[in-house]
């Protein structure tokens, strides 16, 4: 993994490598590299499903589903310190809680674009035999 993505704070800047904070992930799993890899692989499978769940909840205006899906994705993103994703998920989760869909489509579009970058970065930085 490139050094710049280990410690750099997540930002909404243009650097793809700055989105994931692997040290936050290491801290979550107590420094267990094998577990970190396992969790990252689960994230790669599950996060797109959750993102799709958010989209479907907006399509059918299901506030409860929106809240739950956004909450779960936020929780997963926090493990890897992906703060811009956490912030957007929090906005969507709050919208679901308040049953207010105003502005949620725009938030989703931003989230989907960010998640594309996160997935690319995570795949790129995960070596075949170990985490970042």
């Amino acid at each position, binding site marked *: 993994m490139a050094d710049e993505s280990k410690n750099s704070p997540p930002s909404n800047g243009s650097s793809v490598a700055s989105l994931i904070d692997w040290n936050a992930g290491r*801290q*979550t*799993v*107590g420094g*267990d590299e094998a*577990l970190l890899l*396992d*969790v990252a692989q*689960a*994230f790669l*499978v*599950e*996060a797109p499903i959750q993102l799709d769940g958010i989209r479907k909840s907006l399509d059918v205006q299901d506030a409860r589903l929106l*809240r*739950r899906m956004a*909450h*779960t994705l*936020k*929780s*997963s993103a*926090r*493990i890897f310190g992906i703060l811009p994703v956490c912030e957007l998920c*929090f906005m969507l*989760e709050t919208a679901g*809680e308040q049953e207010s869909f105003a502005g949620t489509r725009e938030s989703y579009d931003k989230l989907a674009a960010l998640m594309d970058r996160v997935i690319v970065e995570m795949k790129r930085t995960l070596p075949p035999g170990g985490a970042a």
Partner: protein
Amino acid sequence: MTRILVVDDSEVDRRVAGGLLQRESIYDLSFAPNGREAIASLRESPADLVVTDMQMPERDGLELVRAIRLNFPQIPVILMTAHGSDELAMTALREGAASYVSKTHLNERLAETVEEVLAITRADRTYERLIGCLDRTELDFTLDNDPALIDPLIDLVQQMAAGMRLCDTNDRFRIGVALKAALLNALYRGNLEISCDQMLTARDGLLVGEGLQLVRQRLHASPYCQRQVKVEVVIRPELARFRVCDEGPGFDVAAVLASTSAAPLDAPSGRGLVLMRAFMDSVEYNARGNEVTMTKRRSPTRSDSET
């Protein structure tokens, strides 16, 4: 081998919790993605403990706690809380959960909390039938600053409370958790005057009297070493009262209560007080802040609720 069921709709979170518990290599872990499947799993093969997320489809954490209390009251439930689920978690703590761990502190606290709750549920039941014949019991203890005395005292109180039909199995260990929090607070925060920050940095060793140089020093230094913890326990079939008094300087009761009430569940301090207030019917301090009195009324039984 102790069997633990981890319930979370997120595969990512299941792997984190499972991986952290698996490091102990003493648990047989199983997993469920929601409350409904968790109950099905417990019917097939009961667990010794359940660790659950709060927000899930098909029976959330609160519904799971209620179902376990109804169908498997002997199984304690630990909540994994996240920002946004505090209200649900507080309700679940009041309705039957044994403890909680914030998802942001799983690495530091999950295994420790699991062991703490398991230790409390393993209480000796040797005198259960005899205690069932007791009408009232009153116990007064004067404890030196020895953490090794805390677990036996809790075991004894749990036997008394459950044997006298004050509480069901679930409330039995919740009483244990609350009393342990009060005793640890009296010993470390009260008598030894260890600050909250110092407690947090040395949490792992505190239960065995190790881990913090300051604790070791104060256990032998005046005035700390002369101080004792007074414990009064009164149990009747309809009510129990626990008074825990330390000989430290006390604390600003109003300020601490206000800060704990306003703080989220993932706040680094105040966890003991959160559990005491969730598990007891009343928690009151004296003006000096060195004495807490907790009251627990009899748990409603299934036959009560049916009438």
